[in-house]
């Protein structure tokens, strides 16, 4: 941990408040817990990313046998998916950035239950440990979806992965609970609901999903474990079970989970765009309420993953219709963000660049989502690379762009130093171009009929697969470079002011990095956080 590297000497703050390894491992400070989450998640991101590159390398040539055999390949995409979903994309923003920023944004000293917060971290790491342990045994080859009856029959160590995901789920539930109570109870004087920053609204909506949906995943995974060990006959048709029932249970969690992944990223974008446009957010209430609209609809659309599963035509009709309505609040948000830039004074710092990246990629992800919500269109496209491309545009283009935007935005607050703006621009273009080169061809591959989870493919798909593999190398370089300049920034970046972006949410009212208890005296809120007046167009970070 960077407890003596990123320190601005002289004053007392959360990084130098206490020293030594134990002061981190046993800390109740939400900021330190947030950083521990952040570095853990980044480590898992590296692991998941390596598997992604291995997948792309295997697919560089048609016909299989390029790098690994089919069984190993099947494990690669399972690890890639399971690690990225359960250990990276779900916890990345709420647990890492949310933990760090939410209490400060509310003007609180910490989350409502600091001990529970630390417990959540260790529960998460225990779950991760089980899942990663499986890699060193016989692995898992079910795909991250664990579809039955294959997941019952396979002789890989899928039980450990299931157990790991089960445990990690409790971390998610407890963090959600902690955030809900924190937002209700620990807001600073004057911070009314209608003055709440949109990132807090987004985390609130996310927390509700975490608390309500994750238990269903836990139940499902326990049932699947029991089915494997005790052979009860819930999902296995040989024993009288119903394999499609598993899909219903699984997606009842995993569809809302998609919004656990994307809503916090939307919250970050809602913070960044007004700051770097120097303008009030457009349609504050619409953005806040649309988070809840999305959270609500999230629970009643799971069947759109199952249009060709064998569920009834009536079910397909209803799920397709309901799914269409997801696009409405999502559109409201996108249009409101674009509207915020109108007649603003736009600064092009890295957080804003990543917000642009988010808007481009997420719009693509959202529009191709409409394809998949349309019944007939989904029949042809589902289980092909079109779906792979779509959810990467949403998950990477949405969540990861949001995370990177947030990391750059709050970097000065977290470490008291600035990252290099020039380096960040290079990193941004590497990642965004690399991403489009990797995943756009996959839309075409899918439309042409190339199925997903294929170790070998037919020769006609070679060209686009090659482009995709080359793109993935570009993303890899981009991320390594980003890690490098962040590290440089932490060690030797220019000292950051308390408020380098001239932003108005509460975390910028305290020093960078913040003191142990966040504020020297409790702040009092007198206005909403987007009060950017017409002449208030400059930004200290860009004046030096």
């Amino acid at each position: 941990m960077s407890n003596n590297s990123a320190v601005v000497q002289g004053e007392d703050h959360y990084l130098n408040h206490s020293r030594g390894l134990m002061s981190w491992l046993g800390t109740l400070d939400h900021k330190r817990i947030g950083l521990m989450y952040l570095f853990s998640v980044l480590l898992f991101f590296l692991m998941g990313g390596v598997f992604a590159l291995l997948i792309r390398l295997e697919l560089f040539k048609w016909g299989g046998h390029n790098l690994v055999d089919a069984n190993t390949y099947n494990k690669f995409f399972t690890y890639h998916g399971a690690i990225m979903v359960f250990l990276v994309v779900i916890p990345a923003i709420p647990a890492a950035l949310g933990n760090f920023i939410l209490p400060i944004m509310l003007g609180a000293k910490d989350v409502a239950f600091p001990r529970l917060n630390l417990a959540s971290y260790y529960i998460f790491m225990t779950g991760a440990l089980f899942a990663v342990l499986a890699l060193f045994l016989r692995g898992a080859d079910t795909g991250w979806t664990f579809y039955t009856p294959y997941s019952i029959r396979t002789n890989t160590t899928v039980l450990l992965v299931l157990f790991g995901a089960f445990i990690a789920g409790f971390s998610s539930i407890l963090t959600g609970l902690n955030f809900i109570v924190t937002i209700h109870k620990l807001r600073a004087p004057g911070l009314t609901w209608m003055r709440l920053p949109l990132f807090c609204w987004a985390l609130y909506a996310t927390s509700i999903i975490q608390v309500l949906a994750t238990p269903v995943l836990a139940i499902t995974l326990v049932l699947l474990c029991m089915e494997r060990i005790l052979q009860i006959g819930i999902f296995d048709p040989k024993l009288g079970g119903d394999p499609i029932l598993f899909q219903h249970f699984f997606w009842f969690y995993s569809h809302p989970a998609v919004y656990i992944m994307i809503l916090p990223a939307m919250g970050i974008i809602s913070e960044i765009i007004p700051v770097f446009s120097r303008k009030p957010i457009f349609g504050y209430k619409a953005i806040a309420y649309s988070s809840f609209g999305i959270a609500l609809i999230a629970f009643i659309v799971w069947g759109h993953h199952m249009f060709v599963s064998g569920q009834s035509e009536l079910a397909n009709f209803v799920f397709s219709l309901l799914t269409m309505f997801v696009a409405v609040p999502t559109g409201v948000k996108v249009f409101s963000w674009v509207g915020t830039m109108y007649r603003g004074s736009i600064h092009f710092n890295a957080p804003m660049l990543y917000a642009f990246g988010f808007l481009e990629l997420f719009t693509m992800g959202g529009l191709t989502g409409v394809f998949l919500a349309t019944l007939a269109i989904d029949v042809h496209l589902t289980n092909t690379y079109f779906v792979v491309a779509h959810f990467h545009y949403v998950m990477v283009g949405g969540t990861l762009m949001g995370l990177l935007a947030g990391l750059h935005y709050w970097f000065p607050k977290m470490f008291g130093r600035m990252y290099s703006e020039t380096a960040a621009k290079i990193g941004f273009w590497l990642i965004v171009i690399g991403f489009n080169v990797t995943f756009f061809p996959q839309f075409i591959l899918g439309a042409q009929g190339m199925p997903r989870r294929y170790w070998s493919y037919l020769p006609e798909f070679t060209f686009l697969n090659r482009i995709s593999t080359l793109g993935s190398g570009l993303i890899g370089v981009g991320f390594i470079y980003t890690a490098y300049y962040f590290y440089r920034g932490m060690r030797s970046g220019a000292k950051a002011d308390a408020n380098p972006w001239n932003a108005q949410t509460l975390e910028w009212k305290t020093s960078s990095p913040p003191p142990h208890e966040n504020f020297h005296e409790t702040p009092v809120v007198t206005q909403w956080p987007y009060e950017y007046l017409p002449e208030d167009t400059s930004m200290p970070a860009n004046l030096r």
Partner: protein
Amino acid sequence: MIQQAFAGSVPLQGTEVAVRWDSLYNFLVGLSIFFFVLVVGSILYFIVSYKHDSKKKTQYITGSHLLEAVWIAVPTLLLMVIFVWGYSVYHAMTQAPSDAYEIRVIGKQWLWTFQYDNGRTTVGEVFVPVNRPVKLVMTSEDVLHGFFIPTFRIKQDVVPGMYSSIWFTATVPGKHQAYCTEYCGTSHSAMLAKVVVLEDHQWKAWNQNKEIGPIPEAGQPLPSKTQVAGTLGKKPLIQNISLVEQGRQVYQSKGCVACHSTDGTNKVGPTHKGLFGTQVELANGKFVLADENYIRNHIEYPQANTVKGYNPVMPTFKGLLTESEMNALIAYMKSLK
């Protein structure tokens, strides 16, 4: 350019449904390009117009209810059009005509087996007539599989323990690629099949168990004449027992005849004459359609499906019939009109 890369990228149109599918797909591609350009174009325009300039002020705007109403109403309306259009094409995809030629499909790690009315069984290739509705009634022996024919734009999961179906009227003769699309383990990506669409004379020959010669890939030129002549020689007729006859033998050998009749008289259990396709009232008061899934379900779980007016005495036959025997048995019961 994007339009071409995107819309021109779908496989050839092998069915009527594929034509309808492509229209809707192209509409969605066009609409997506419009909205993408709207969003990204606006961003680019704002970036250029409102780039930070310390001499210029911003305008204090917090929202517009009118704009919000527009960007809620317009997308909602468009989405409803897309939904209805999508459903109508889907409906055409799923409602098989009653006169469709039925072929039974069994998925198994990692090959496809096809059973025909005339008793023939093929592996890895399914032979179907051109311009005639064909229905595939599918099940799996082990795990989930998916049957996907890109040129027909149809796909359906194949689930162990139940029957699912797809249908199509192929319009382009030749071989069409089919894939397994539900991950099924080691050789998932090798679980391929060809749908061989035969012209009328070839279909006739095939049904008489005659050799039909090489078939080109769909949309590709025919093989040269010499090749065709070389392989069209008459092979001796293979004697097949029809699927219905195979089913009759299963019906006898598994002892169904002990309690059920095929002539309309009710014995310990109800007669099977005219059963298929009717509504059956169960002892628990429910009405169910006597289709493939009901018959299979009844054979495997008789106690849960006791017919009203009868005693729950039938033993389970779960695990006692192979998937092909089950297919034959159902074909036989279907023939008892």
